């Protein structure tokens, strides 16, 4: 049967999506590209700059420091949140009235606006007024997140773990729930230990959702802005100035639009590259 494959009217159906994507992705992106290769002094006067801004950003020590901070932060929170989330999901009840209680309880931090989370932790951790700050100082540990980089890092990581571990929990829990009871029965009949059940049934069955959880947490934490901005403002000094905070300082603080645009694109490419590497590695593992 000969089918007519060409039908120009089909474009009409795609048009709404094309317009939407153009407005929320393509046009802003091209604007950034535009700024990243030019110099402007306002009044819509532009001078061609080529790859100059990119070279400047890639060679700047400030960028290297922010990037290193960002990688360290993301690495630490992934190392904490993923195992912790899986562990919490494993201890959650499988059925009964407590399931919904636990789920609502778990979802709570996710529902709080990010700047509120930052403000909450800011007050919570104040060394003289906040519950956390006073408790730590009360234990004889010198703690002041507005003055000591170590304390600032500790607070920021704790805040992120509090805010986002729930996401891993919910995803891992969904993965666990999708394992038929028969698997556990079979393992029981085999006499398999609970470690064996975790290692050979639960973990392999959770692999897909965990891949998604890790990717989401990686991307989100790599782009973290609001919470540390409200909590520490990037300080003390530059100690918690992550990439996005640095970017905003350059773009809006110093109004260096060219370097900021170049840095945005580099930033974007790093996120894309790392996500792709993550995904490919995990999928390859799956295929084996």
């Amino acid at each position, binding site marked *: 049967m000969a089918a007519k494959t060409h039908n120009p009217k089909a474009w009409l159906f795609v048009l709404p999506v094309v317009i939407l994507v153009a407005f929320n992705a393509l046009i802003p992106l091209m604007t950034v590209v535009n700024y990243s290769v030019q110099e402007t002094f306002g009044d819509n006067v532009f001078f061609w700059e080529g790859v100059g801004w990119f070279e400047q950003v890639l060679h700047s020590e400030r960028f290297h420091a922010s990037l290193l901070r960002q990688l360290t932060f993301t690495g630490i929170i992934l190392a904490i949140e993923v195992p912790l989330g899986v562990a919490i999901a494993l201890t959650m009840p499988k059925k009964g009235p407590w399931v919904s209680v636990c789920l609502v309880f778990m979802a709570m931090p996710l529902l709080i606006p990010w700047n509120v989370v930052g403000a909450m932790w800011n007050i919570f951790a104040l060394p003289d007024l906040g519950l956390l700050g006073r408790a730590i100082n009360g234990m004889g540990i010198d703690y002041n997140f507005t003055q000591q980089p170590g304390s600032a890092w500790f607070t920021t990581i704790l805040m992120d773990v509090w805010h986002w571990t729930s996401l891993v929990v919910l995803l891992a829990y969904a993965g666990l729930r999708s394992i038929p009871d*028969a698997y556990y029965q079979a393992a029981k*009949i085999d*006499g*398999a230990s609970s470690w064996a059940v975790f290692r*050979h049934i639960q973990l392999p069955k959770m692999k897909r959702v965990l891949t998604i959880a890790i990717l989401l947490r990686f991307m989100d934490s790599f782009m973290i802005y609001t919470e540390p901005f409200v909590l520490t403002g990037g300080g003390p000094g530059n100690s918690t100035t992550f990439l996005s905070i640095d970017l905003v300082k350059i773009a809006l603080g110093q109004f260096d639009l060219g370097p900021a645009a170049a840095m945005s694109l580099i930033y974007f490419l790093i996120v894309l590259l790392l996500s792709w590497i993550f995904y490919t590695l995990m999928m390859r593992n799956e295929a084996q």
Partner: protein
Amino acid sequence: MTLELRNVIKRAGAETHIYETSLKLREDGFNILLGTTLSGKTSLMQLMAGLERPADGEIWFDGKNVTKVPVQKRNVSMVHQQFINYPNFSVFENIASPLRVARLPRAEIKARVGQVAELLRLSPMLDRRPSELSGGQQQRTALARALVKDADVVLLDEPLANLDYKLREELRDELPKLFRDRGCTVVYATSEPTEALLLGGHTATLNEGRITQFGETAKVYRQPMDLISAAVFSDPPINSAAVTKQGDRFVLNDRVSWRAGESQRTLSDGSYVVAIRPHHITPVDHGANAVRIDGKVLVTELSGSESVVHFEVDGRTWISQSHGIHAFHVGDQASFYIDTGRCMYFGQDNERLAA
């Protein structure tokens, strides 16, 4: 080795899954649990395996009370409806898993896995993972895991239900051979009467948490003790209707009547229930014992070799199943013939009266 349930009851919360049940399983041939979904097949198996404890009653195995013995110490194996294998183990490792837990020497594990794999025709796939196998091969792997263990009790919970038709037939032929002469008690749950008949052995019909009858499969089929057992062991559903006995005749719907058979002559006049298997109602007049019944055609299902017709008589739906293609139009009036020699009669309490 004999497995015996003595007055076991299983509850889950306020619900009763198994009402007081006693059952002594056979070692020769399969013990088939036949019943619809939620009739209690899986619950019974979980009790037998030791995955669940009965709320009351005892489970005896080989002259020992094993009610409180946990599943790992009972030497049972189980195959589920879903294909259950360790996802990141190779087929070899999957089959070997119960032996590894039992800490058998490496050489023996290899020998036994090889033997079972040969039996189930899995030898070429030992290095693959379950996800790289077809459904039939995955279920063979699960069967191999159950076999390699030399369990005393093997529980097969609808193992063929998720397989396609061809594979199901193939594996169904192999199953009885695989377990023959192994000296283990085999329990097989199914919801399909045909499967029970094909597997033979002994069958227990289950209905709403109760075993209604247990005996040789063919006997349970031919001589159900009550209407429920007859209904459980019938697909398509059995026809049943009220009849009155007047003298030496049975009267159905005040219109159709037939002479009572030899063994029903002695029944006193009154109301009874007649049950007729669908394949004893046909569109063809087959002579001596046939009684005609007219109805309106509701549904017709034609497969290659047989016709199933649902028709309505006085507000009641009847089902006829016959060989060959008998085409009817939905809504038409049609005549069917009941083989009165094959009717089964039950009392008002649904107990079977006479053949």
